[in-house]
């Protein structure tokens, strides 16, 4: 792989960029791989990457029914934070966040990780208590956060309306090293690195069946023919239920639409990510200048990648109240993704009833921020059979009543 | 009287006039609407028959509205509610019913104005087809008014009644006033 650098650009500029090589290869599938990952989104590619990097497993195929990074990786609001309440959540999201810090250098691909800081606003006494609790938990989890007062919020976010009248800002949970990254670049950077390790990323290859022998996986059927494997990782947010069905087990998952929108670009006016859970909206400003806005999920199962407009209305009115200056900005584009939601809204990283089949799903609205941590844990789980980061996220927790519930500290949205 | 309605007589004049309609007697009657005994009790208490689905029947100062397959809303003068409740309870003794005075739980607004303007004010707030061929006097609709539950009906083509929960009376009044502000005419219902 030829390294990217300013020098390389200068060299290529001289010859009209004719020398750039493909970022990733476009191979036909082999007959057999040690590991097949279904889903070339951020999570699937990260899983493959860490299988190679951490465990030397490179005879890997990543199968993608559409184009790589074309699912939720390319449809989210790019927020990265790890200020979670429960230990196991904080562990995997903080692992992810710390990997984001060095991702551009690790992958030699600038994913534009911007640790600009994330504030979760406390607008009720209940939220104040909830976020103070989270701050205490984070301190013991090694996640650097701080509960800050309203004046500090105003300093960090001059465009915010902290005085209400409806929901005065009482403070906020501030994670200085949270931020954003360029979402597509995360998928592309991993894809390039995986391809460089000799892994096959096979796009437009839809899995149509999971082949099992004696309760163990032996391969998959695809639109490009049958492919054998020893281990199979299902990493297909939104469509996890469909794939599990092929493998012969059920997941405690429902697929819901989650929507986002951006404004037209304006000059820089907000340097941090702000989440306002009382009114259900969050906003950041992209490097292009667009205000990137999101809210809650729709309430019913939906595979259309289109949501209901009243959720957009709810989100926008919440943010107009919080940031009155956005009223005269215009919505440029709205879109939806399909997120898979589990019974406790926390992910599943688990072995399954079928030997050799592993599942990584249920990230709900937290998918993007967890990509490297999720890939890291999934790779370890698939390579070694267990992973401390994945331990608590097993499927068994539902039968045991062992919930990982993040909504308890008011931190609902992402 | 020391009783106060939520808005204590507020009024706004815009494309239509929005007024607090004051204290209105309201009784919820839950029961088997197909039962003859219930129909008779309603008749005795109000002089009215049980209305059809999503209809309201009225006579004088009383009215009966269809709320759901097992619930009616009985309207009577505020000061008479105690008597009507007692009458109903007596007539329905031994039956499985629930008679509940909810007069104080709600606020009522009166909207008066040109027929088209009246419809427009409501159509800004409720996901309901308010064209004359779809909704008119005699119809009763429970729905959503912006962010809260509410219900309305037309007494005639120039008078509408809107009810909502008492705690959100100011919010609904605010909604109705903003919707009735001059300059906001839509001109779609003639």
């Amino acid at each position: 792989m030829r390294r990217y650098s300013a020098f390389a650009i200068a060299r290529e500029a001289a010859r009209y960029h004719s020398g750039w090589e493909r970022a990733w290869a476009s191979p036909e599938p082999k007959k057999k791989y040690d590991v097949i990952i279904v889903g070339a989104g951020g999570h699937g590619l990260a899983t493959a990457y860490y299988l190679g990097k951490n465990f030397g497993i490179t005879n890997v195929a990543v199968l993608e029914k559409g184009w790589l990074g074309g699912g939720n990786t390319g449809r989210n609001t790019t927020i990265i934070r790890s200020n979670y309440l429960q230990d196991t959540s904080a562990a995997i999201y903080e692992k992810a966040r710390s990997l984001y810090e060095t991702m551009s250098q690790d992958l030699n691909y600038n994913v534009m990780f911007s640790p600009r800081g994330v504030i979760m606003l406390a607008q009720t006494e209940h939220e104040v208590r909830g976020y103070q609790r989270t701050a205490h938990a984070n301190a013991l989890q090694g996640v650097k956060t701080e509960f800050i007062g309203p004046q500090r919020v105003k300093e960090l976010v001059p465009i915010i309306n902290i005085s209400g009248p409806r929901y005065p800002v009482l403070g906020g949970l501030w994670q200085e090293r949270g931020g954003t990254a360029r979402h597509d670049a995360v998928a592309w950077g991993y894809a390039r690195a995986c391809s460089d390790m000799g892994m096959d990323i096979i796009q437009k290859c839809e899995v149509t069946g999971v082949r099992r022998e004696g309760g163990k996986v032996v391969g998959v059927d695809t639109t490009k023919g049958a492919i054998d494997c020893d281990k199979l990782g299902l990493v297909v947010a939104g469509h996890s239920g469909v794939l599990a069905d092929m493998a012969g087990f059920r997941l405690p998952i429902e697929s819901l639409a989650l929507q986002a929108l951006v404004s037209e670009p304006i000059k820089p006016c907000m340097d941090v990510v702000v989440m306002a859970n009382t009114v259900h909206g969050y906003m950041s400003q992209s490097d292009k200048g667009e205000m990137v806005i999101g809210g809650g999920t729709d309430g019913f199962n939906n595979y259309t990648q289109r949501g209901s407009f009243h959720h957009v209305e709810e989100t926008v009115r919440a943010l107009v109240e919080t940031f009155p200056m956005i009223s005269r900005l215009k919505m440029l584009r709205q879109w939806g993704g399909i997120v898979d939601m589990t019974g406790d809204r926390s992910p599943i990283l688990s072995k399954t009833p079928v030997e050799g089949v592993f599942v990584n799903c249920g990230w709900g609205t937290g998918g993007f921020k967890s990509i490297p941590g999720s890939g890291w844990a999934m790779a370890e789980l698939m390579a070694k059979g267990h992973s401390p980061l994945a331990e608590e996220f097993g499927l068994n927790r539902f039968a045991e009543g062992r919930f990982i519930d993040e909504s308890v500290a008011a931190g609902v949205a992402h | 009287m020391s009783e106060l309605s939520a808005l204590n007589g507020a009024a706004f004049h815009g494309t239509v006039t929005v007024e607090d309609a004051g204290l209105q007697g309201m009784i919820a009657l839950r029961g088997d609407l197909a039962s003859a005994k219930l129909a008779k009790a309603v008749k005795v208490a109000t002089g009215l028959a049980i209305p059809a689905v999503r209809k309201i029947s009225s006579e004088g100062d009383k009215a009966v509205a269809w709320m759901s397959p097992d619930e009616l809303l009985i309207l009577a003068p505020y000061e008479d509610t105690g008597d009507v409740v007692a009458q109903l309870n007596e007539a329905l003794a031994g039956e499985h019913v629930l008679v509940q005075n909810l007069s104080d739980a709600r606020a009522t607004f009166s909207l008066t104005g040109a027929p088209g303007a009246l419809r427009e004010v409501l159509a800004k707030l409720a996901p309901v087809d308010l064209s004359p061929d779809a909704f008119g006097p005699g119809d009763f609709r429970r729905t959503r008014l912006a962010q809260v539950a509410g219900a309305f009906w037309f007494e005639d083509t120039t008078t509408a009644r809107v009810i909502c929960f008492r705690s959100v009376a100011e919010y609904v009044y605010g909604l109705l006033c903003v919707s009735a502000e001059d300059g906001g005419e839509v001109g779609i219902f003639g």
Partner: protein
Amino acid sequence: MSTRLATKARLLNTDKQIRFSFNGKQMIGYEGDTLASALLANGQMMMGRSFKYHRPRGVIASGAEEPNALVGLGSGARFEPNQRATTTELFDGLSATSQNHWPSLEFDIGAVNNKLARFFPAGFYYKTFMAPRAAWKSVFEPIVRQSAGLGKVPKDRDADRYEHFYAFMDVVVVGGGVAGLQAAKAAAQSGAKVLLLEQTAHWGGRAPVDGGVIDGQPVDKFVEELVSELETMPNVTLRLRCMASGVYDHGYVLGYERLTDHAPEASGPRHRLWRVRAKQVVTATGAIERPLSFAGNDVPGVMLASAIRDYAVDYGVSVGDRTVVVTNNDDAYRTAITLKNLGLEVPAVIDARASAGGELAEEAKALGIRVETGKGIAKVQGSKRVTGVAICSQAGEGAVIEEIPCDAVAMSGGWSPVVHLWSHCGGKLIWDDVRSMFRPDVDKAPTGADGQGFVVAAGSANGLLHLQNILADAQAAGASAAKAAGFTPKSAAAPEAQAREEAPIEPVWLMPQGAGPKLRMKAWLDFQNDVKVSDVMLAAQEGYESVEHTKRYTTLGMATDQGKLSNINGLATLARSLNADIPQVGTTTFRPPYTPISMGAIAGEARGEIFQPLRKTPMHGWHEEHGAHWEPVGHWRRPYCYPRQGESHADAVAREINQTRKSVGMLDASTLGKIIVKGPDAGKFLDMLYTNMMSTLKPGKCRYGLMCSENGFLIDDGVVARIDEDTFLCHTTTGGADRIHGHMEEWLQTEWWDWKVYTANVTEQYAQIAVVGPNARKLLEKLGGMDVSKDTLPFMQWQDGELAGIGVRVYRISFSGELSYEIAVPASNGRALWDKIAEAGAEFGIMPYGTEALHVMRAEKGFIMIGDETDGTVIPQDLGLTWAISKKKEDYLGKRAQARSHMTDPKRWKLVGLETIDGSVLPDGAYAVAEGTNANGQRNTQGRVTSTYHSPTLGKGIAMGLVLNGPDRMGEVIDFPGTDGKTYKARICDPVFYDKDGEKQNV
């Protein structure tokens, strides 16, 4: 220079001059102008700078597709960035400023990017700025952000208002051109209710500019008559300045009506968002002309041929004196003919086709216009303004044959139907090779609730370009929409139209077709985002082969015009690069809105006072008058405390508690939920709902109860009073009123529908006032009217009666540990009773207290609070509430769940009291640490604080918490590290800090 012509313009009223300013310079236009036409008339071709390279940008189009002419409009509370000059109607006093430059439009430092453009190809960010690591955030990103971003930031709260409007229609026709008008008529004649939306201020679309004859009349006349006819039809609603911004599932169409943008002084809302439910939608949205990709096609003065024609005909504006037309189709000849007829020079029509054969070409030639076939533009000369073009053979690599001086270039690469609305909700497209366009696949329309198609495309939006075909298609579309909506359309023929016959288009995706890298780097696809042919080719070369990859890698089509001009050219370029067919490459997904719509319109009326419902109790006004400091609780606002002059909130809370414990206090408890549950099976039902046994409660008595979810977690608590044999009244928490009522109805309707139980939520029927403290009884006795003595009304009983002449129901329940009465009174009498209590209490020094005093007092008593001790993961067994869990019942909601292994785990943290060694207050939410770390390196914990307060009664900090084996560890001291760097040491103790034996409440 562009200038105003002396000839009559279609849309102008030259009797009415309009004054406006651009970058502070005063200018004059006419009524009917757009900002773009007026600027051009004032010689202002350059209107902005591009996003990435800060290249000079002139207006290129005349409508919603404009990517360049974006301005900041207005000032202060009415400032709006990124407003399209082409869709901004001119009004008196309009003030506009150009964007994305510093210090000025003419001289922009940022244009240095342009000089370095070669180093900034597509995706260059991804390949550099990686070292040193911190530099991206601190150095590179701020530079990138500052140089991007386009418009200025609005500073103030918006001065305008907005609203929503619901409409229900049989047929919505989008687009008020001839196709839309005709379709609306065809649909309306069936009797269907029709709404016709047009985004501009004028009917007729572009047909009147393009010419032709309909039913023997000029198009303008036809439009005028048709509009008049539609206006007389009672079932037709016509709206100008109302854009259909999106089509959503189940026939939901969003209309964006701009009511006062053209008249800011007018009263009324600025924008109205129409939420229309349509049985059928006809998209008569027209077509958009495509640019051609040649070097220098972005120089100001290079415009769409149709736009130059529009400015001349509609606004009497000449874009330049000498306009070279470059085309691959016949339509652009209309521009040449129009200009020539207006007395302007057209040095040449450069036609990339080998032969130009249509009637229009013949007409142009007849007018003496030089037509060069098989030629293309090698390069446009000029930087801030076109000075000429170098022409070449289209088949070659760009060797210059001739240079032609000119000051404008009219380009046409053919027409693309506007398929956005068709596509928003899943309508599919097909590639039409003959016409070189994506058009709606009529067999794959978006489907509605019934599974049938609900969108019909009409006219040029359906790929038809000849006037006769357009009208016939529109007639058919209107009729078919009416039919699908359940009406019987009249069989009527479409009007007869005559227009020129056109020779076929020849697709040209690069000019000249063999252009080398140097020319390709100057051939723009996306004018705003600075994406060139070379960028798309580079993306393909690097493996970003999916059209979505290319779009995202190059930012093609992601600017504020959302690629209306660039998408098709871009994906054709991609297809060429991949040696694939265009349909194989496909399109990106069309997402709403069609053009950007204001956030204000989306938020609608929900701002200020009516941003959200604010729920108020009947005593709300009193609290306000008495200086309450508010706390939002759900949609309610409750007094947190009532601070007096100079008093801190903490002091106020302490005072309120002290006075209540010492004498008497009063609390507005109206927000607590009250639900009537009645019927022969009411007891059985409540036994399922509560963990306690409620069916054994005697009429007249009260019992505290717990409710769990089916998942076992504690979701609500409150006192249940049995009213009579069949009737219970269940109190819930403030947040629980609606939720628990819904919960009850859900179980009754969907699981136990044969149980005879009715419920009614009577929360708002009653105001509820708690009178609390040792003097409470005396106070009530003073009010008079009923016996509230211990014997007649003992603890945990209720009675109906009268106080101070007002009918009440009094509950002897206590959440404070004091002698306490909760008095329910019909809401309309709430304020009267409150006033009487306050008045009668004066002699006892009665004080109102707020939620914080309530919380502290209950904590002193060790009572749990839903939301503090519980957080959705806590079961009653954790809280030492096993006494409230009936052992006799076979079943209740949550019972089975509580038998699962994690819920019976002895290691679950249990409720205890906590007191600091030094009397200080434990920090809220602090965790108790245990030895060591877990497998993920996190510090182990053994408990947490759930409630913590300073107790004025005890004069020290008190807390409750959940602790591992807590109840077995009384007296043990554990460590709670704070976030302030201190470690708080607390002793585990009984959670009941005050009056452990309940002697005070039970008197």
